[in-house]
């Protein structure tokens, strides 16, 4: 029998017992809906977690340090050998920037310094951030704004530091983590914050630095030996192999306008080195702030090296490749990709369990299909006999019952996906109402990707066809002589 005839006959047969077949199809729909609702929740939670983690910048970032520096990941990845003591300088930065999959490689500039606000001193870790950091989660609920330009003399302060500047006691942990604590600190916005820092200037002209730059003051915050010739700390090493570049350390001040307040530092990889004040990276580089590596290596202004680089990759999938390339260049590289892998494993297991629970309803529905089709065989026994007498082969009869089972599976699948989608939407809406009442921002916990829609339809069809196996075989084996005698 040709397929259109098969479909026509199957549709006719299904219409004949419309109530029973509709109930069976509804059973399949409920099964598919539970599967889709469960998995869409699992997928949605996974996407939410991934989205959140990606926004932290942790999963697409590789921190690079010198090969002989026992810093980030030195133990985890194996410290580089002694010969891998290549300087992490501008040449290396450019080389890393040009690696496939790398978006940018920026110096990790941070220093402990003193700030003055309203005439009072405050100690703070200052970190320089590229403009690309704007996309990070930490700046989602910023109070105020991000840096206006790459060279702006602007600062974004961390909430606890802002509270300290305003002379307020730091809030409790619960309150401090909530986004609504920030508006209370709004008076700080637009105010001036004075940063004290040590500038390195070439030794040949130690005092011709930028002491007179606008907005700066030559007054050191406390007694200082500046200007003074700095000797490299690792003089033995540098003294043998590297021409020493002498430089002077000149105390400087710089006025910064507070433009934003954030709850957390964007770079949560840091532990004790967490910053409380952020300034634009290009602006910070222009200040020629002295860094620990300057003292260690004694490099000149032109070939100064960095303590660390923060390398952002296009996709978290690119991280292992980039890490490997950086290792081969002789540097230490560290990322939290392993944590990401664990997370993926967790969600895979979660999805598996959700799918198993969701499939239970579909398994029950498949029993409904078997029951319906077996009943149909009993009811249509004579009709099957007629078909066989007229020349229907066993295969024709089998195909007819398969088509009926498949039709119930497809219709049930479509209804189920729609129902599951609606259930997911309702759960999402309900959860967001709850979040709204808790003064938390809305989230999407639920997602129905195309693969889930197609997979659910395919699974529904497959389950229906498997359920149709026994009834179809039974119908095909009917003895036409007995079937024709059946009343």
């Amino acid at each position, binding site marked *: *029998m*040709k397929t*259109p*005839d098969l479909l026509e*006959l199957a549709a*006719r047969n299904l219409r*004949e017992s419309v109530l029973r077949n509709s109930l069976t199809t509804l059973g399949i729909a409920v099964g598919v809906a539970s599967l889709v609702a469960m998995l869409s929740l699992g997928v949605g939670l996974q996407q939410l977690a991934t989205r959140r983690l990606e926004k932290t910048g942790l999963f697409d970032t590789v921190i690079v340090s010198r090969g002989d520096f026992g810093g980030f990941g030195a133990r985890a990845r194996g410290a580089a050998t002694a010969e891998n003591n290549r300087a992490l300088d501008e040449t290396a930065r450019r080389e890393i920037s040009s690696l496939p999959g790398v978006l940018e490689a920026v110096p990790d500039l941070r220093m402990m310094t003193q700030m003055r606000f309203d005439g009072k001193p405050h100690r703070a870790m200052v970190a320089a951030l590229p403009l690309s950091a704007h996309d990070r989660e930490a700046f989602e609920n910023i109070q105020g704004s991000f840096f206006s330009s790459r060279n702006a003399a602007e600062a974004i302060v961390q909430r606890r530091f802002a509270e300290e500047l305003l002379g307020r006691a730091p809030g409790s942990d619960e309150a401090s983590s909530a986004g609504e604590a920030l508006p209370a600190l709004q008076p700080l916005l637009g105010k001036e914050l004075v940063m004290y820092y040590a500038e390195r200037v070439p030794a040949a002209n130690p005092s011709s630095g930028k002491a007179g730059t606008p907005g700066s003051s030559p007054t050191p915050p406390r007694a200082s030996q500046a200007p003074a010739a700095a000797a490299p700390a690792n003089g033995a090493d540098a003294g043998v192999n590297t021409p020493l570049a002498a430089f002077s350390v000149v105390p400087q001040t710089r006025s910064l306008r507070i433009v934003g307040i954030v709850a957390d530092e964007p770079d949560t990889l840091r532990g004790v080195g967490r910053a409380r004040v952020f300034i634009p990276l290009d602006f910070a580089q222009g200040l020629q702030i002295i860094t620990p590596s300057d003292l260690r290596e004694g490099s000149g202004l032109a070939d100064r090296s960095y303590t660390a680089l923060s390398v952002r990759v296009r996709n978290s999938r690119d991280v292992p490749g980039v890490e490997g390339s950086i290792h081969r260049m002789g540097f230490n590289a560290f990322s939290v990709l392993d944590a990401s892998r664990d997370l993926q494993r967790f969600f895979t297991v979660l999805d598996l369990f959700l799918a198993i629970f969701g499939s239970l309803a579909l398994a029950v529905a498949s029993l409904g299909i078997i029951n319906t089709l077996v009943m149909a065989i009993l009811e249509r026994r*004579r*009709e099957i*006999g*007629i*078909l*066989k*007498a*007229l*020349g*229907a*082969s*066993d*295969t*024709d009869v089998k195909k007819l019952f398969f088509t009926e089972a498949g039709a119930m599976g497809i219709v049930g699948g479509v209804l189920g996906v729609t129902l599951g989608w609606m259930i997911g939407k309702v759960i999402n809406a309900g959860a967001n109402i709850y979040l709204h009442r808790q003064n938390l921002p809305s989230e999407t916990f639920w997602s129905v990707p195309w693969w889930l829609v197609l997979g659910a339809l395919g699974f529904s069809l497959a389950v229906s066809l498997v359920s149709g196996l026994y009834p179809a075989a039974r119908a095909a084996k009917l*003895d*036409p*002589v007995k079937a*024709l005698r059946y009343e």
Partner: protein
Amino acid sequence: MSMTTTTHNAPGTIRTVEICRHYTLGTSVIRAVDGISFSAQGGEFIALLGSSGSGKSSLLNLIAGLDRPTSGDVQVDGRSLSELSSEELARYRRHSVGIVFQAFNLVPSMTVAENVELPLRLAETERRDRAGRVGEALDRVGLSPRLAHRPGELSGGEQQRVALARALVNSPRILLADEPTGNLDSHTGMEIMELIRDCNRRLGMTVLLVTHERALAERYARRLLFLADGKLVEDQPILPFPGESAVRP
């Protein structure tokens, strides 16, 4: 009216060789058909007569390919049905035989046209050719105006006409009729028998008619086979109509 003569080479020849169909019920064996041998030439009209349980319908089912013999063989146009696979046997039923049952056996949910179209669907006949062939078959039985009716809306005689049209629509070589008038009054039964004889004469179909009405058999068939307890007890030719040749068993 063109008369059909029976010949050994015409399509629709049937030959049974010591054919048996035994059923086992518990410890007892029921010999529904027990070693029947006979030959029917193409275009012959044979009536199978016998009392209830004599094995008429069982023999018809074996010739129709609806059942397989316990032993022996059925040959149609020289081809042994025992050697056919299940699929080949279905193809044989589809193209070579048309069956009319006492109980009509129409599909109640289908219209008259759909019932008649059913063998064409199974034979994978092109859709565009079907309406013409359905109309032709229904014309032959005089039921063209009832195309859209369902079997439940027809009289017994009309239902049997539909069953006959369905049996004819694929132009089979053999028409097997199992008590076709059994559920009809005598007048309607005569009408159906006239149609069957018409198929035999005009289309040259071999007709095997199962009946227990001797008068009906003698009136329409040209040869009578008497069955009792599953055995062929008598093979009796009937004088031919004028212009027909007698058939020798």
